[in-house]
Structures are given as structure tokens and as C-alpha cells.
């Protein structure tokens, strides 16, 4: 019970919890929540993983079986092979990390400029960028798509090329906003000291700002990757070539032509990379969402 004393005060007073009735209620509610949450959030994952091990007939059997009667792990191999998951996975990784690189370079540079260099019209530009947050991406999908297939001035068609994912990914006003906020909190004196030493701006950015900004860079990076990983409609439209598709789109396209258990196995495989990212970086993700996100 020492933990209770150490915690900051919340809704329920420690005194109330310390009483017998309080304790009982707490443990009942806690136990219920644990059970329900585990069922609601892990249950579907369990169903998905075991679904991939069942036979086709068993998957669509009514009522559903709680665990595979005759587990056949080869379904996973079959899914990997038939849906060409290696290729889809490779594509998605390529797009995601490319988008990350673009966002890290261009968004960081922009946020640095807006926060510390403060050019003329900087605030107007920032305002225009933030305004895009208020406009849902899907509403603009038609003109955006028409732009990508025939980029004005350059007269290039970016369809089926990774640029169709990478360049639009930079227009992430939220990331720029997060970065700028963070940079704003870096004391000017640090930069002044650096420029006294004759460091150029790019050097200051590189060796003063970026090292301090590791946490926020981590957060922005994860968002950048996850965004690409989760996107559906945009890659569906801009990457029509099946050799260039992402996991999401590839699985969707092929879902009609494979049996249920193979499809479920493919869904499981597709879920693994982001789940791994999440489990490894959960601390960064959580803190990024909260501290860096909307609180500051």
C-alpha cells in the first residue's frame, strides 16, 4: 500500500481507498477492468493469430472454435508466399523510411527556421501550414491525386513511384507544430553561445538543437512511420501497380482470391511489424502522445 502514498492525489481520496469498503470496491473494479480490457483488446489478436492456424472449414465453422483443433502453421508460410508478403513488406518499409527521412530533414529544417530564425512572413507560413490541419485529408484527395499524377511546373507523373508517398508526407503540419513547440522551449542563450563560437546555423541545428531534441524526434519519427504504415486510400490510388503496393492495399486487393485462413494468417503477419515497433518504443510513443502532443 506504500504505492498509494507516493502517488499524486486523484479523484478518489486515499483515505476513502484505505477503508475496507473502499479497498473491496477498488479491487472489484480493478479486476473487472483487467478482465474486460484483456478480452476486448487482446481477444481479437488471439483470434487472429489462432485463426491463421485453423483450417478453412474451421475458420467459418459455427460456433467458432476457441483454439485450433489441428494447428497447421504452414498456413502462415502459404500466406507469406501466395500474397507475396515479402515484397509488400519491403515496399511498405521502403515508403515508410523514405517518408521518415524526408520528414526529418524538411520538417526539422522548417520548424527550426520558424522557431529560431523567424523569417519574414514566417508566422503567415506557419498559419497556412496549421490551417491544413483543419481540412480533412480525404476531402482533398481528388485534387491532390490529380496533382500527383501531373505535378505542375515539373510535368511529372509520380504515380507508381515512391515520391507519391514521400513528398506529400512532408505536409504534416502536426509534426512541424510539435517540433516547433519543442524548439521554442530551447533557451536562446544556448544558440547565442553557439553562434558566438562561430558555428553556422546548420551546425547549430546539428550539434546543439538536435541532440537536445532526441525525444521529440523519436516521437515524430514514429508518427511518420506509422502514418505511412496505416494509410490505405492514398496508396491504393497512387500506387496501382501491384509490384509497388503497400501491405494494407496488397492484402485488400488479394483478399477476394484467397481462402479465409490464409487471409487471416496474412493479416497477422502484416500486424507484426507495427506491433513490434510499438512494444519496443512504447515509452516514447506514450510520452510523445501525451507530453509533446497537446499538453505543453
Amino acid at each position, binding site marked *: 500500500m506504500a504505492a498509494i502514498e507516493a502517488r499524486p492525489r486523484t479523484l478518489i481520496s486515499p483515505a476513502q481507498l484505505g477503508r475496507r469498503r473502499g479497498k473491496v470496491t477498488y479491487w472489484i473494479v480493478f479486476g473487472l477492468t483487467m478482465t474486460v480490457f484483456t478480452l476486448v483488446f487482446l481477444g481479437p489478436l488471439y483470434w487472429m493469430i489462432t485463426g491463421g492456424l485453423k483450417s*478453412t*472449414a474451421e475458420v*467459418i465453422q*459455427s460456433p467458432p472454435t476457441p483454439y485450433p483443433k489441428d494447428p497447421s502453421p504452414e498456413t502462415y508460410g502459404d500466406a507469406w*508466399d*501466395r*500474397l*507475396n508478403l515479402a515484397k509488400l513488406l519491403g515496399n511498405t518499409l521502403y515508403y515508410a523510411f523514405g517518408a521518415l527521412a524526408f520528414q526529418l530533414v*524538411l520538417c526539422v*529544417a522548417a520548424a527550426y527556421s520558424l522557431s529560431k530564425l523567424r523569417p519574414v512572413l514566417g508566422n503567415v507560413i506557419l498559419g497556412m501550414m496549421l490551417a491544413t490541419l483543419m481540412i480533412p485529408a480525404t476531402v482533398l484527395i481528388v485534387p491532390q*491525386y*490529380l496533382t500527383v*499524377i*501531373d*505535378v505542375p511546373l*515539373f*510535368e*511529372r*507523373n*509520380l*504515380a*507508381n*513511384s515512391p*515520391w507519391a508517398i514521400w*513528398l506529400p508526407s512532408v505536409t504534416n503540419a502536426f509534426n512541424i507544430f510539435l517540433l516547433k513547440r519543442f524548439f521554442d522551449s530551447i533557451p536562446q542563450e544556448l544558440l547565442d553561445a553557439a553562434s558566438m563560437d*562561430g558555428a*553556422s*546555423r*546548420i551546425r547549430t541545428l546539428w550539434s546543439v538543437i538536435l541532440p537536445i531534441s532526441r525525444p521529440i524526434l523519436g516521437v515524430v519519427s514514429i508518427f511518420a512511420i506509422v502514418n505511412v504504415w496505416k494509410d490505405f486510400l492514398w496508396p*491504393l*490510388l*497512387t500506387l*496501382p*501497380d*501491384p*509490384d509497388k503496393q503497400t501491405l494494407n492495399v496488397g492484402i485488400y*486487393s*488479394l*483478399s*477476394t*482470391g*484467397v*481462402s*479465409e485462413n490464409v487471409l487471416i494468417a496474412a493479416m497477422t503477419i502484416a500486424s507484426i511489424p507495427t506491433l513490434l515497433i510499438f512494444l519496443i518504443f512504447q515509452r516514447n510513443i506514450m510520452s510523445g502522445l501525451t507530453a509533446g502532443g497537446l499538453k505543453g
Partner: protein
Amino acid sequence: MRSSGFRRTWTTAAIAAAFALTAAACGTSSTDEGGGSDPGSDAGKPLDKKAKVTISIDCMPTKTKDDELKGWNRDIKAFKKLYPNVTIKGKATDPCLEPPRFTAMLKAKSQPDVFYAYFTDRQQILDNDAAQDITPYVNNKTVPALGDISGNVLNDLKSDDKLYGLPREHYSMGLLVNRKLFKKAGLDPDKPPTTWEEVRSASKKIAGLGGGVNGFGIYSATNQGGWHFTASVYSRGGSVVTPDGKKAAFNDDTGKAVLQQLKDMRFKDESMGKTQLLKWGDLQKQMVSDKLGMFLAAPDDLNMMAQQLDAEYSRFGMGPIPGQKYTLTGGDAYYVKKGISPEKTKAAIAWLNFRFLSQGKGRFDWPKIKTDGLPVGLPQPDFWTGETRKKDDAAREKDATVPVENFQAFRDNPVPGKTEPAKAQEVYKILDVAMSTVLTNKNADVDKLLDTAEQQVNQVLANG
């Protein structure tokens, strides 16, 4: 101080320049292919064997279609021997065409040199200026069997007497049945129902087997509900749009009968199962797992079921479409991209001829297809006439792996074909609602649904 300032500006300029460069390098495909599309006088001559060209083509079988892929790869090899300087770059696609992907592709002009499309996409292809007139290239020398391709089929690929594509598949719809369930329910699998009343009673019997088995299934989502509605209306002798394509024509007794029967089968008989909003793939999967007795299909649905869902094809059979007035026919073809060089065009036609249009070769090389594990003996593709038809039919029969009697009823009762309506996708979208309603709402008002749909279709057709 000064020099540092200069350096700063310089760095900035470098960043800007670097970005400009990356931006300029963005495009991987240039919008203009260049190259004259003027066929010249020797367009009609077959491809020069020395010509060194590479052509890209989509709708190559994916790994999920492993059996078909074997044949494709074998043909690529054989073709390479014939034309060592021609390289065929296949793009695996499954499904070969998805409307949004297709629209996006045409709009972006990112279609491969030889691209796949349904017959019904002709207008959209022409509107987008996506395909070239291949009339000068196609003759008895380049496509020897040309004279034996059904004129109706070729007409579907022509506009103003100019030929734009070569057929790949041509089908007419029938009633696919699960022979095992038929037997179990005490029905004769060799005599599938030929009227809609018989469909209803058979469906009831099959659903009576229990265990989640449904008697009859039909699509009702992603614009495919409209497609199956159309097929059902045709089978009863009705039409979806007037012959001039200006008005809806389904709001009559035929249309009502179609919807009413589906509603009765779904709610009164409860022989269609609770799960609706089905689309392509769903019914095939149900049938393979012996949960479905019948659905409207083309013979090559069996191809998909055999190689993608690993079904044993002797378990299924086909009868003519119930009602037998008209059957919906359709097909798909390969078109040649506008703007590619005459040499490439010739290579494209040589390949299409080799794989898709030669009796006894490529996809008509039945002995080899048999060893690949694909069903042989299906009444599809169905576009040959005359001498070629005779030879091909005999060849199919000789190596048939699908028991002949399974498709006997379909073959013995040919039903006249009827093609899909104008503006099919938009019309189908509207009819989807009527279909999903009668299949999910037991209080659905058939008359009202048809009234609304008629009004809407008229509007779409009037919009031109």
C-alpha cells in the same frame, strides 16, 4: 563575421538547390512517351524477328494463381525462342482490374504497353485516349485465327469500325451448382434447376440440410449487386435500360419478380443465409467450403475456385441460367497503349496471338494446361467459331478433366447472350441499394425500391 554570414547563405542556397534537384528528379515516368504512333505502310506485316523491343503487360497471373502462372511462364519461354529479341515484362495483378485502380491508371497514363480491361470499359478507355487503333496491325498474318473469332465479340472491341483490343475471355453466365450438396438434398446434380421456381424450391431443400448451409447466393455490394440483378433480369427476358440507352427499363413485372423472389427466399424460406452484402470472392469461398448450393456464375469461376481456393473441380457443375431467356455475356480483352512505337505494337500483337489466340497453343494448349492442374473442358473462353471452334472443342474434350456431364446441361442449352447496359457502373451502384435492401430488410417495399431506382437511373442516363 562576414565570412560566416556568407557561409550561412551559401549553405542555405545549397539546401535549396539540393531540394530543387530532388524535386526535379521526382518523376520516374515521363508523361510523354514520344515515338510516333503512325503505323506506316508496313504495319500489317508481322513482327521483324530482329527487332529488339521490350513490352510490359498486366494481368499476369499472381502467385495465388500458381497453376496459371506455370502456363504463362512456359509461354514466355517458348515465345522468347520464337522472338529472341522481344522481352515481355509481365505485371502480376489480381484481380486484373479494380475500377478505382483502373480509373487512376488511365488518368495517370500509367497503363502498361498492353493493358487489360473488360469489354464494358471501352468507352472509358476511349474517353481517356488510352488505347490505339490496332486495325492496321491485325490481319490474317499476324493473327491467323482472326476469321474464326466471333464477330459479336470483336464488335465489343470496336468503335467506328476501328479495332482497339483483342479478346482474352468471353463468357456467358449460368448457374453454378455444388454437386455434393445437391445429392445430399436429394436433387439431381446433372439436372440443375432451369426455372426460377425450381431454383427457389431447390434452394429451400439445400438450406434444409442445416449446419449453416445456404441454398442460393447472390452479390449485393460494391456495384456487383447491380451486375447480378442485371443478369437475373436478362434471364427472365427483361432489360435494364432501353435499347437506346436513355431510360431505365427494369421497373416492370420482371424487375419486381427478381427482387420479390430474392426477398422471399431470404426471409420467407430463409434459404439464403443471414450474411449478405456479399461481393466477388465471397460466394466462391462459400461454395468451396460446401456452405452454398448455387449461384450465378461464369464457367471460369471454377478456375478461380480450383487454383486459388484449392477446390476439387469435379465437385461442381453448371446449368444454363434459370429462365433461359437471355444470359448476360461479357468478357475481357487486352488493349494496346496509345503512343507506343509500331515495333512495340507488333510485338504486343505477336504475344497476344501466341498466348491467347492460337488454337492448340498458349492458353489453348489443353494437354499442358491439364498437367498444370487447371480444369480442362470448361465451356470458356467462348469466342471461337467455324473451323477453329470445332478443333478447339475436340481438343478440350480429349483432355477434359472436368467430368463432361457436369457441364452438359450448360452446353446443351445455349441461351442467347446479352451485353451489359450503358454506364454499367453507375447503374449498378443504384441497383446495389435495391439488392441490399431486399436481402437485409424483411419489410422492404419492392415497388418503391424499383420506383426510386428507376428515377435515379433515368437521371444518371440523362446526365450524358
